[in-house]
């Protein structure tokens, strides 16, 4: 796989230890030029959304410090509203069918349960997400070029028409 320029990943979790170890693992496993930023609350993440992260790894329970903090699903829905191209991976300490279902319905990229295989899974899912982002970009570029060509043809026809008339 070639590299994507300026790939940025946000990690959001109130568990600082998990956050640090995940950041470290991703930094070492992924061979891309990536910028990883960590946040402890969903609000902080949303506040920095203008930096247009490509991928957000989001924990579902974020209220261990502040009981009124937003949960992962609310943050996911806000992210999808403000930056629909951002792919969101939902993490959860406990397996809950409704959270998994809601994540999928709200447009999350994946739902991962926190256990001993999590770092491997997240690494793999991020790779898939990067692949998906690349495919989308290539698709958009191809459509843009097709439109340019059509505009070109239209211009040629217009010139020919004008030449005939005058």
């Amino acid at each position, binding site marked *: 796989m070639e590299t994507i320029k300026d790939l940025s990943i946000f990690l959001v979790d109130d568990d600082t230890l998990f956050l640090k170890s995940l950041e470290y693992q991703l930094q070492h496993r992924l061979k891309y030029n990536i910028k990883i930023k960590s946040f402890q609350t969903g609000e902080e993440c949303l506040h920095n959304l203008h930096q247009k992260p490509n991928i957000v790894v989001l924990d579902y329970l974020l209220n261990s410090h502040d009981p009124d903090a937003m949960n992962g699903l609310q943050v996911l829905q806000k992210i999808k509203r403000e930056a629909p191209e951002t792919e969101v991976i939902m993490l959860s300490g406990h*397996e809950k*069918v409704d959270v998994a279902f809601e994540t*999928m319905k709200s447009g999350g990229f*994946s739902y991962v*349960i926190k256990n*001993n295989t999590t770092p491997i899974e997240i690494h*793999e899912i991020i790779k*898939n997400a990067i692949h998906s982002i690349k495919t989308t970009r290539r698709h958009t570029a191809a459509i843009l070029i*097709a439109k340019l060509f059509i505009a070109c043809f239209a211009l040629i026809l217009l010139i020919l028409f004008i030449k005939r008339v005058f």
Partner: protein
Amino acid sequence: MSDLIKTKAMETTNKSLSVFLVDDDRMFLLSLKNELKRRFKNITLSTFINGEDCLSHLGEKPDIVILDYYLTAGIPGALNGMEVLKKIKSISNSIQVVMLSAQDKLEVAASAIKYGAIEYVAKSETAFIRLQNVLKNSMDVIEYSRETKQYEAWNYLMALFLLIYTAVTALYYLNH
């Protein structure tokens, strides 16, 4: 013309994706099949109860294979999921394999990824939802790639036409 290109591209994307399900647990196989059938309209599902059957049907060119790790129950000598994965990947690298496992084992996850599986899913409460999600994501990627190929072919054609047209006009003006 852009509509024409779009319909052309749509025709190819409407071609259904082929998905293989491999698991020796018939109950799980059947319920997964029904669940996926209900959720996705344009996919063709084939089910196999062992790895050998799946391998012998690889000629049907599946896009995605959902493979259970533990396939050796009751049959001594049967291939386990990892061996099937290796064989699939050695036959065609473009087939995407999702590894399923009843236990959440680190070694299984790590080697599945190492041998080219796109994702590792533990068989748990949320397994169906996660599998649907994985399938949706890979379907999106496959459909987008197909569409992109179509667009790129059109682009090459138009570029060629434009080039010939410019050359002809240039020659015409040079001669007059």
